[in-house]
Each structure stands twice: as C-alpha cells, then as structure tokens.
C-alpha cells in the first residue's frame, strides 16, 4: 500500500501515457489503412 501511495504520480502518469500511446498508434494504423484504400 505504501508503494502505491509513494509512487501515485508515476502510476497515474504511466497509465495515462499507455492509454495515449495506444490511442495514437491505433489512430495511426487506421489512418494508414484508409490511405491504402484511398489509393486503390
């Protein structure tokens, strides 16, 4: 419990960064797929 309390900032930062990086690369992959279909 102490570990969570002491490192709370980094835990929240880590979760938020993982969510953002996941969202970014998902959107990037969708973007690339659309571009591929647009060229066909």
């Amino acid at each position: 419990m102490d570990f969570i309390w002491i490192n709370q900032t980094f835990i929240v930062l880590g979760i938020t960064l993982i969510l953002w990086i996941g969202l970014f690369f998902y959107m990037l992959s969708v973007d690339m797929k659309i571009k591929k279909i647009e060229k066909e």
Partner: protein
Amino acid sequence: MSYVLKYFLFVWLTAVIIFAIAAPIPAVGDMGERARILYFHVPAAWVSTVAFIMALFYGAMYIKKRDIIYDHKASSSAALGLMFAVLATITGAIWARFEWGAFWNWDPRQTSIFVLILIYGAYFALRSAVESEEQRAKLSSVYSILAGITVPFFIFVFPRIVESLHPDPIVNSSGKVKMNTNMLLIFLSSLAGFTGIYAWMMNLRVRIAKLKLREGN
C-alpha cells in the same frame, strides 16, 4: 493532415501529459493534487462544445448545398462531441466523488451536460429511425441546427445563472484569468492538443464516409 503533424501532435500531447501529471502544482483552494483534473476535464468539455458547434455548421451547410457529405460531417462531429461530453462527465464525476463526496450531485454543470448528452443521444435515435438517406439528412440537419443553438446556453449561460458548487470557470464573471502562469501554459497546451485529436478523429471519420459513398456509387 500530414504525418508530420500527427507525430508532432504525439510529441506535443505526450509532453502535456508528463507536465500535467508530474509538474508541481500550486495550491488551488483546498483541492491539492485534485486540481490536475483541470488539464484533462476542461479540454474534453471544450472539444465537445466545438464539435457540437461544428455539427450545427455542417447541418446548415447541408441545408444550403444539399451535398450528402455535409450530413456525414455533421453526424461525425456530433458523435465526437457526444464522446468528449461523456468523457468530461466521467472525469468530472470522479473528481466530484473526492471533492464533493458523491459521483453525482445534480449540480448545474452536471445537469447541463447531462441534458446535452440526452439532446445529442436523441439526434442519433432520430438518424437511426429514418431509412431514406435524403430524408434522414434533411431532418437531422435541422435537428443539429436546433440542438447546436442550445449548446452555448447549456455550457456558458445556465451554469452561471444558477448557484453552483463547481469551481469558477477559467475566464470568470469578472472577465479575468485567475491562474498561475505555468498552470495556464500546460492548460492551454492541453486545450490545443485535445483540439488536434478532435481534428484528426474528424478527418478519419469523414474519409471513411467518403470511401463508403464512393463504394455506394
């Protein structure tokens, strides 16, 4: 949107997240660390307002030009607006649990965004109820204009004329920004980053709609 811009958005928002969560925050009332929600909650609410206003604009453009792509743009913008409004409501409710003691208090801010969510939920119910594409576009364009007119009232007017527990808006009633410079910088950067995400999501949805239209012809 070029890929350079997208990678720039990635770097920009990553920096915003790091500063928003890890940078020291000055004392804001008795909120302490909870004040950090400002960096995510307000931009989400801001983007939902922009998206609803854009849905109004595209609805009006459809009425004027009768081009079906404007109907797709209006519905895409309304969908994104709804998503960001739900996000703002959830983040606000979590903050309220720790600040006010309950997730939901029917505070004027909570009530007004709830009503907006219902209004735009009804927009999609209307769209799914009409089969003819042209009829659907006409009806939902008129609806998006009427719904868009109510947005400034629910976001800017109603919460200010009724007694509320919600912290003062960024630009308060005296027209002055009362915020530490560092906080303001991170907040404005987050606002720009969220607007960038909206623009990109909108771009993706419109391109998908165009591909579907191309396939249909």
